[in-house]
């Protein structure tokens, strides 16, 4: 039998990076930019935070860390790192009108490389015997749950046992949905993604919207990388540990039909599927089944892609100009 009270917090913990990546990518795609660089951006978001906190921890080896700084330094580093990634993507695809798919894939390779390069360097610097860096002091601040959560039994465990980034990820998704569907900026953003020439003729600054949406989207996604290292992995960075969560986040965008609110539920579902293999008792004789269970999220992704491509409703289709560059004077 699956232990629900133990499973749900793990599933939600897993879902946070997916949800942040998904919300960020939804904003980006709504502007018509298909950013396949999200996995790389999330890596960079993670490693930037790690670099910040590594040096702050080094500076405070023998003294007390300031809790506020311990959180703000990695947070800002992470935001700046992913913002730079977003800017590179925008300069290439919006200003120079490079192919979005190629740029995105290159950004992923680049981001993962950057992550592993600096990760490796830091591991050397720290002189650890294992190929990883442990930032457990910083992680303590990131994963700090509400103090009374522990006293509330299963309720506290399921709803109150998370670090602040987890709650932030849900708030971001809700705000993203409100912005998209209830504000003028959201209306304009959707118009830019559907038909940039229409938006342009209506006096909307297409490039500005693409830049802002993509960079903000990258910063949100980057937080996913930060959350993974600082909270989920308890401050331990080891190269390639983040895995393919970035790709799952992109698949989630389609699953949630470009709606961040659906994204919340989709992320929790996928978070659960991602770790369900740990909770299905197989016994020692059938260890190989675990490998099959690990496939579940990917099989579901494929299945969902088939399902979504069969849907006919126009509102549920990808933004019409997704993946296309816009040039006003093109004839």
């Amino acid at each position, binding site marked *: 039998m699956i232990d629900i009270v133990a499973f749900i917090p793990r599933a939600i913990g897993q879902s946070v990076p997916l949800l942040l990546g998904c919300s960020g990518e939804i904003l980006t795609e709504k502007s018509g930019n298909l950013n396949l660089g999200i996995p790389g951006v999330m890596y960079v978001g993670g490693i930037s935070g790690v670099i910040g906190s590594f040096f702050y921890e080094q500076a405070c080896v023998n003294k007390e860390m300031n809790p506020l700084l311990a959180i703000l330094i990695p947070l800002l580093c992470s935001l700046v790192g992913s913002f730079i990634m977003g800017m590179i993507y925008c300069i290439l695809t919006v200003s120079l009108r490079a192919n979005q798919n190629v740029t995105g894939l290159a950004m992923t390779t680049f981001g993962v490389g950057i992550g592993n390069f600096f990760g490796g360097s830091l591991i050397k610097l720290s002189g650890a015997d294992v190929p990883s860096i442990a930032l457990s002091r910083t992680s303590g601040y990131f994963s700090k749950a509400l103090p009374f959560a522990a006293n509330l039994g299963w309720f506290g465990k399921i709803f109150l046992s998370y670090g602040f980034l987890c709650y932030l990820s849900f708030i971001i998704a809700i705000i993203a949905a409100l912005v998209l569907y209830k*504000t003028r900026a959201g*209306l304009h953003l959707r118009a830019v993604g559907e*038909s940039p020439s229409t938006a342009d*003729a209506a006096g909307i600054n297409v490039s500005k919207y693409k830049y802002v949406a993509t960079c903000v989207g990258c910063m949100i996604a980057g937080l996913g990388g930060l959350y993974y290292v600082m909270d989920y992995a308890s401050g331990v960075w080891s190269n390639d540990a983040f895995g393919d969560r970035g790709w799952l986040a992109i698949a989630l965008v389609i699953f949630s039909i470009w709606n961040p609110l659906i994204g919340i539920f989709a992320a929790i579902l996928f978070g659960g599927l991602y770790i369900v293999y740990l909770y299905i008792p197989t016994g020692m004789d059938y260890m190989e089944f675990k490998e099959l269970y690990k496939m579940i999220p990917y099989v579901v992704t494929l299945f969902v892609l088939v399902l979504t491509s069969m849907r006919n409703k126009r509102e549920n289709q990808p933004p*019409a100009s997704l993946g296309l560059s816009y040039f*006003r*004077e093109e004839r």
Partner: protein
Amino acid sequence: MSQAAVRLENITKRFGSVVANSGVTLDINKGEILALLGENGSGKTTLMNMLSGIYYPDEGRIFIDDKEVKISSPKVAFELGIGMVHQHFKLVDVLTATENIILGLEGRLNKKEAREKIKEICDKYGFDINPDQKIYDMSVSQKQTVEIVKVLYRGAKILILDEPTAVLTPQEAEKLFNVMRNMKEDGKALVIITHKMHEVESISDRVAVLRKGEYVGSMMTKDTNAAEMTNMMVGRTVSLNIRRPKPVNPRPRIRVEGLTVRNIEGIEKLKDVSFTANSGEILGIAGISGCGQKELLESIAGLQIAEKGSIKYISDDGNEEELLGNDPRRIEELGVALSFVPEDRLGMGLVGNMDLADNMMLRSFRNGKSVFTDRGTPHKLAEKVVDDLEVVTPGIETPVRRLSGGNVQKILVGREISHAPTVLLTAYAVRGLDINSSYTIYDLINEQKEKGVAVIFVGEDLDVLLEISDKILVLCAGEVSGIVEAEKTDKNEVGLMMTKVMQKDTSHAVTLKKD
């Protein structure tokens, strides 16, 4: 001093080495409808795009109400009261009419208030739209209405309409003209770009003519006539009559019976369509766009899966062959040629990034015996088409997408004709073409007819259909609402048939079955 709402002075605009407008000086007056005329590529749309802020002029000055202005973006244009309704609608499909109308405006999002203001505008000028309807649910004329309301919502005093009637039925066009007259009464300045001479004559007060990017002159509409205007546009005398040679020895060539086609969503695009197309005749097909014209032609060419019915090809010796379900290649071998000009002009038939010769080869790449393709013949053919049809191109090696629309169409039609077809299917062959190029295409089609080819001609302009066709089949929502002799009918009747299925036994409707 003057009542000019807009004055353009010495406007020049270049795209790379191409000069789109050169030294254009033009006044647009309040309370007046100005028709802007010119051939394709004469720079009408470019000129108007500079007023609406899409392009920025390289040289020259623009005055609004005698004050010099710089229109650097569409937003500035709105603020100056200039609104343009583009030929290709600038609407977002998945948004509602209201959302589209308020798109780009500032301030808090208040859809309720917007809706009320839209209602007000609709009542004032006699529009009829549902503010909460999604654009993709709308007909073409409804979309156009949304475009016009959008412009008025922003308080435009100067309205530019780029080929507004190209997509409308005659009745819808008349409705639009009434609205335009209402706006004129209201003191607004209107500019209409159109290729249709009779519309110029019926709606405009003044005509301004552009030729090759230069301003030729303007005159009061009541003092001129279609022939004079055309001569000004083209720069030489052009005959405005389309030849209609008498069909010689017509024999049934294609017989369609009970054809029913559903599209991928299961909607009936063609319903029980029956007719016969004869050799040496032009069968015109009229109908509002999207009424099954595409499906009909594709069925004959073997590119559509039909639900039921039959399409028989009857050769000269009387043999019949079923085309439905047949291999498109076999149908091609029988001599059925399809030239379909879609709305974006390229698409079916030509590959934009390939050059002229390679596009010719799309039809002939299977020929030749060696493993290598034969490039010489298509190259010669391309040269011949360029020569015969006066295609303006830098060379045979130019990618087709770089050519202007008219020249692209000439290449497509030229290629299809060069294979000596027995059946020529052509759709929107003159779509967006100016008068001069259109007549070249009409001549080509007539030549084929005289050679004994059965021509099926899907057209948009009823005047042309009435002049060139021998018979006209009218489609309405996938059904045949009647087949009429072109000589014995008029625009009104065909226009009505386009909007509703009529009794098939009206006085001068005849069936095409011949004994």
